């Protein structure tokens, strides 16, 4: 890809807006179509595009494999942790009313934002992990693998 100047420049220009758009979809999720899953996929696209154009090593320098794995687990913990927080506040599991007892609908906004953030983190991690798994695959199975 060294000679593809246009591709490299356009990619660098695009990555910022892609991440911004991901965050837009994320935070607009409780008003309009969107939310953590879509945002996570869009966020992962930024890294995957970078990997496709600049190579696997470059993207893994920015976003190493171990971090991807931790993020997958972290997102699940954020989601479940929100539920546990409401549980400790004396409400049912995942009852977002707990975060604003006098205005349950406000609490629901907060709760949904927290949960969707967890989804964003996990989905980004999973999507990038799938890309890494395919991209890092060795061309043929070596003899000792059998």
């Amino acid at each position: 890809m060294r000679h593809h100047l246009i591709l490299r420049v356009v990619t660098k220009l695009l990555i910022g807006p892609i991440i911004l758009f991901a965050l837009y979809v994320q935070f607009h999720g409780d008003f309009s179509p969107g939310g953590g899953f879509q945002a996570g996929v869009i966020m992962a696209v930024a890294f995957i595009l970078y990997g496709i154009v600049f190579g696997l090593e470059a993207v893994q320098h920015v976003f190493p494999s171990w971090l991807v794995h931790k993020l997958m687990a972290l997102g699940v913990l954020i989601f479940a942790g929100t539920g546990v927080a409401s549980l400790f506040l004396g409400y049912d599991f995942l009852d977002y009313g707990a975060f604003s007892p006098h205005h349950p609908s406000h609490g629901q906004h907060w709760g949904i934002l927290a949960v969707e953030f967890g989804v964003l983190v996990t989905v980004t991690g999973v999507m990038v992990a799938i890309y890494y798994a395919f991209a890092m695959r060795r061309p043929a199975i070596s003899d000792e693998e059998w």
Partner: protein
Amino acid sequence: MATEHVHVARTLMDHLPVLVVLVPFLAAPLTVLLGSQRLAWPIAFVSSLVSFLISIKLLMQVIDGGVISYHIGGWAPPLGIEYRIDAANAFVLLLVSAIGTIVMPYTVQSIKSEISERHHTLFYTMYLLCFTGLLGVVATGDAFNVFVFLEISSLSTYVLVAMGAKADKRALTAAYDYLIMGTIGATFFVIGIGFLYAGTGTLNMADIAAHISTNGADRTIETAFAFIVVGMGLKVAIYPLHLWLPNAYTYAPSAVTSFLAATATKVAIYVLLRFMFSVFQPDFLFEINALRWIMIPLALVAMFAASLIAVFQSDLKRMLAYSSIAQIGYILLGIGLLSATGLSGAIVHLFNHGITKAALFMGVGALVLRSGSSFYARIEGMGKVMPWTSFAIVIAGLSLIGVPGTAGFISKWVLVQAALEQGWWPIALAVVASSLLAIIYVWRVIEVLYMAQPADPTRREAPLSMLIPLWIMALSTIWFGLDTDMTMSAARAAADGLLNGFSIGGTSVGH
């Protein structure tokens, strides 16, 4: 929906139905996040132990016929997801969490030899996810939630089976076969749920049941029934749908096999029971025909054909896998008899066979640790060098046959009673006759273990961390064979609960 209402703070006790699933679920990502091989086991063990203690508490709360209903997110059913604990699922929760906890100390030595080092941390993550999924399937009262948890447990099971690849590469194809079959099963199940939703407009099981009992069943609901039975049949390994089971059990790591054999198929049977008796009414003619003309013949075929195949195996682990298919036949027979006695026989056999098979597969795992393989030729004469392991296998083997004084006898006795109650004495005879086949295959094991010279007399007994869980399971097969109060009363309460179906907003303990 933003109405203000006085909120009564919940206490920890009110949260037990969700905590039983939540504790291992939180532990699973935690093991990945910490990424520490040393911390993974303690986290997994403590969280399964907590689930086990919660299950005991839950069973004590509902054994008198009460129902606990827990509303996730504070949304009342049928709109919200409901966790619904009654005697039937509290009993299965107890089985799953007890086996999950007892297998834990056993895994340490077992996976050291059978799973490559870099997978150890992830093994516990997968184990916890599988455990969560199985508990979730049982605890929930929402039909779609069953599917979600079923997928969590199945996907992690495929990975766990594939981890046997260090010892034998065939684990990979076994896991792949299981993946394909399991996914077809799950797809059928979710199609069934879709039809149910189309037919009734709700996903809450109690609400579906209420809808069917007032409006009757139409073609959509009958189709849903067929899809759900076939889909779960694949997971249960009902006779012609069992092809994934022998390889998956044989090539999975021993610790995984002993956990799965005792829990995964049992949970699938629970789902089948829940749908057949609680969601669809048992007096629904279509279902009676399905049970009588499909389930009972298949159960009988399984009892004989799978036992016969087991007799001719030359690998102990594979033999036990085929015997599992036969034992599932007994459970299905109990269900097919369509009476309270038959159903409680099925439920008690589900429990008794679970502990028996867990003990046997643990014994096999200990033999594999010392001899490297479970082929009869490789474990000849192990009775002399590994007396404790071998004797535990013999005790559990007796329970598999159904010798009086062991757990296996109790459940077969109840099944025979149930068959005689309806005057179906040929079926009672069939139960006894297929037990004779079990004598043959268990005797072959005893012959191999005790009546040959040990190939290598320098082998040592298995480590204590494996022997103690093995003996806990072996002794509990005797304990539940002599003291049947707990198992039989729980099974009766479960059977009554299932046959009476749901009533929305019924008696509620909890809150």
